[in-house]
Structures are given as C-alpha cells and as structure tokens.
C-alpha cells in the first residue's frame, strides 16, 4: 500500500473517531476520574495532605455502630419503597395497558408530567398537602378522622410516602410496558386450558413481567438508596439516611476523605444489592419457560 494512502486512511479513521472524542473527554473528566478519585480521597488522612495514606476512614466507618445502622436502614428503606411502589404501580400499569379509548395517549402523557417535574417541587407539594392545618389534615379534621394539628410530616413515614410518590410514574410506565406486551389471547388461552385467576397471575403474568419488574426495581432502588433531600426535609430527627451523613461530612463537617469513604461504600452496597436482586429474579428463568410452554402449546 502506498504511504500516502495509508495516511489518508489514518486521517479518515481519526476523523470518524473525532465524533466521540468530546463526549469521551467529558465523561472521563466528570465521571470516570471523579469516581476513581473517590477511592484515592477515601484513603487520605486529610484532603490537603496528598500522599499520606491511611485506612482509618474505613475502620472508623465499619466499627461505628451508627454508620452500619444507617447503611442497613437505607437499604431496607429503599427495598421497602421499591416493593411499595411496584405494588401500587402494577395494577395501575396493567389497567392503563387495557385502556382501549382514545384517551390513552393523554393518560400516558399525564403520567410523565410529575416524573419530569423538579423533585424539589414535588417534595414541596407533598409538604403542602400533608402539612398540619393543610388541605388534607383540615379535611380529615372535618371528617373527625384526625386532628388538623397532627401530620405525618417530619416522620420516616413521610419520607417513605414521598419516595413512593416520586418514583411511582417511572415504575408505572415500566410495568405498563410489560403489561402491554402480555396479549389478551395469552390469558384467554391459559383460561381455556383450565387456569384459574391465581394460576394465570403466577404462571403467565408474573413470569412475563419479571424482567420489567427488575428494570423498575433498579430504577427505583438506586436513587432512593442514594437520596438525602427527602429525609432531610420530610423525615424529621429519626428519618435520616446514609445520604444525609455523606452530605453532612462533605458540606458541613468538611471531612472530605470520610465523605469519600462513605460514598464509595454506599456505591458498593448498591451494586451488591442490585446484583443480588437481579440474580434472584433470573433464578426461575420463568419467562423463558412460559414462552417455551406457550410455543409448544401453539404447535
């Protein structure tokens, strides 16, 4: 090959690859290096004394009961929120997939609106709705259900309610998409083969929905496990999660290395839990089995 042609080819190749270079640079500087640097900072004694390494941040983190407690609490809260959100969203998603009227696109559009509204506004809105002497408590007072002065604001329950509320749209849309793919004919076929309601759910609907449930679980679990604003505003003194400690260490206490260690451990915990959930969901291989069985039945 003539050298000038090699050069032309080389410039052509570099020319094509230059398409991805700006993004690569951005993601390297703002995502890859920062995440890698968390490990480096977490091993420092002092953020201004580079090179003096210590494991004390991690030993402090693992030996202090408070931090272990907060990690467990954050994971359990996120799991509870995920389960509650799925429970509330699933029937709604199923129902939405069975809407046959012309209103369906409008309903889908409406579901996305809260999802694309600033979650700080959502927090504020929930705050206003549930506040003592607010609209809901006034209504409950007139119905003699509860006193207008009482409120669930500033309790862990308020935080959980908030998490469910802000994650409902995305879980609903994911489970809507799953339900949409389950054909009515499938259910009719299962029924004609003698399956009752429970069997239809556990042997057709559930296995076919597991991949979407897992996707929804990941989408909800991760942000909730890393949240700190909701508990700070709505959770009161007993509602704090591990995200609040990370925020405090970085913005108040100015102990950046310890904040980095807490963040990195949280990331590791999240990866472990999400990995475990995905393994758990894949164990039965249910969806494939149902598909295989239906394919056989169809022959």
């Amino acid at each position, binding site marked *: 090959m003539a050298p000038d042609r090699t050069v032309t080819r080389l410039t052509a190749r570099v020319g094509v690859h230059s*398409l991805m270079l700006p993004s690569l640079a951005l993601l390297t500087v703002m995502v890859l290096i920062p995440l890698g640097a968390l490990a480096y900072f977490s091993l420092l004694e002092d953020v201004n004394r580079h090179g003096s390494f210590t494991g004390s941040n991690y030993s402090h983190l693992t030996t202090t009961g408070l931090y272990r407690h907060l990690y467990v609490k954050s994971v359990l809260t996120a799991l509870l929120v995920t389960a509650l959100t799925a429970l509330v969203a699933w029937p709604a998603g199923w129902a939405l997939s069975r809407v046959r009227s012309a209103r369906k696109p409008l309903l889908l559009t409406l579901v996305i609106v809260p999802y694309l509204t600033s979650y700080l506004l959502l927090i504020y809105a929930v705050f*206003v709705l549930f506040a003592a002497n607010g609209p809901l408590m006034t209504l409950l007072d007139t119905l003699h259900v509860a006193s207008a002065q009482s409120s669930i604001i500033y309790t862990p329950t308020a935080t959980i309610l908030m998490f469910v509320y802000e994650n409902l749209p*995305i879980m609903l849309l994911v489970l809507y998409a799953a339900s949409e793919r389950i054909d*009515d004919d499938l259910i009719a076929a299962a029924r004609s083969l003698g399956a009752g309601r429970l069997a239809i759910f556990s042997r057709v609907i559930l296995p076919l929905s597991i991949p979407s449930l897992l996707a929804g679980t990941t989408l909800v679990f991760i942000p909730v496990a890393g949240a700190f604003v909701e508990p700070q505003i709505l959770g009161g003194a007993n509602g704090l999660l591990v995200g609040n400690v990370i925020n405090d260490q970085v913005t108040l206490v100015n102990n950046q290395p310890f904040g980095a260690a807490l963040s990195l451990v949280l990331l590791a915990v999240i990866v472990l839990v999400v990995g475990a959930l995905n393994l758990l969901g894949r164990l039965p291989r249910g969806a494939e089995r149902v598909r295989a069985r239906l394919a056989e039945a169809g022959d």
Partner: protein
Amino acid sequence: MREGRMSPLLRAYLVLAFCFLFAPLVIVIAMSFNASPYGTFPFVPTLHWYHVLFSQGNLFHATLLSVEISVAVAVSSALLGTLLAIWLVRHRGPAALALNGLLIAAITVPWLILGVAMLLVLDAVGVGRSYMSIYLGCLAVSLPFVVLVVAARMRELDPALEEAARSLGAKPVQAFWRVTVPLAAPAIAGGALMAFMVCFNNFTIQYFLAPFGVQTLPLEIYTLVRVGYKPDINALATIIVAVTLLLVAVLQWLGSGSQRLLRTSR
C-alpha cells in the same frame, strides 16, 4: 377480562392512582390562587402571589438562571450526544463498550455520589464550585439521555435510505447530512428537550457544584421549603407544571415520549 372491557374495580383503581399522582400538584396549583399566606381556608381567590413571584424575592431570578444553564447544557449535550450516537451505531468493540459503560455510570450512579466525587476532584485541581462546574456536571448527567434517544432512532433508520442516496451519486458525507440527519432530527430535538429538563430539575449536582450564594431554581426551592409554606412557590410551581405539560406534549409529538423514556431513564 374480555377484549376492550375493563373490570370496574380496575378502572376505579386507575382513577385512584391518578388522583394520588396529581393530588399534591393540584393542591399546590389551587393554593396559588388562594389569598391565605399560610395555605389555610376559607379559599379567597387572588392573583396576588403571581405578582409577588415576579416582583419580590429571588424565585424569578433563580428561574432565569436555571433556564440559561439548562439551555446551554441542552444545546451542548444535543451536539455532543448526536455525534457520539452516530459513532456508537457504527462501531463495536472495546472502545464502544467502554463508552457505553461510562454513559451507564453517568445515568445510574446516584447523583449524591457523583456530585461528591465531582466536587472533590474539582476542588483538588483548584476549580472548585463554579458556573463552569455546574455546566460540566449537568452536561455529563444529561448527555446519556440524548445519546440513548438519538442512537435508538439511528438504529431504527433503514440503512437502505443512505445507500439509495449513495447510489444516486451522493458522497457519504452528503448522504449523511441530507438523509440521515434530517430523519434523526426529531429524536435530536427530543433528546435536547430531555437534557433541558434533566438539567433544569437536577438539584443534587447543582447543590454540590454551584458557587456559594449562587441560587439556581432547585437550590432556591431547597432553601425556601425548609422555611415552610410559601405562596409564591405555589405560583411558580403552577407555571412550571404548565410548561412541563407543554414540553411533554412536544416530546410525545417528536416521538420521544413515554415509550422512548422507558428505555432511557435512570
């Protein structure tokens, strides 16, 4: 359940779910027209809080600042994201895998952890909290939305269209600019809109990277909400929900609505 029929129970549940989803927003919108400064009854209609919103306090300025930053981020991420999407649909191998991994990291790692990590690195190199930091941080977390939307559209496009242009005598670059880009334009616009909203609403990254004293809208609401009920936030929330509704309608129209969102959101 017969074809086209829904049990009344299921229908009632769907109505209930929508009520839950919209009750807080509807209350805030209603309260923005209520004269009581503490959100109490009786309901006395007024437009006073809209006047307060535009004439007093920082909410209006914070909104303008957020719009400016978000427009800059949306335009930049549309450009960078489209270029990356073009590259990604044409390349496989370790480099493409690595870039996909970075995009997934940017979209899934909790913003708290990313924000802390970005702040530590920017502090270490002497940049610290700055407008540039907010811009780059928000750009990094908005970029994946554009890439996923545009790449999905590019994969749907029939390669035969570009080949037809080629066989009619167009050079590769011409075929690309005059066939592929116009066909992908709605997706690019949709991605830019997504990026705008992701940036406009992103409290956490801005919280860690904004210079002290600089209040974007999410930061301003954060400061105010801890004080309690603020009728002018209600007025602002009403405007924002209305604008969001409009933008979502545009997204649907561009074909990047709920279905696309499912595949791209964090």
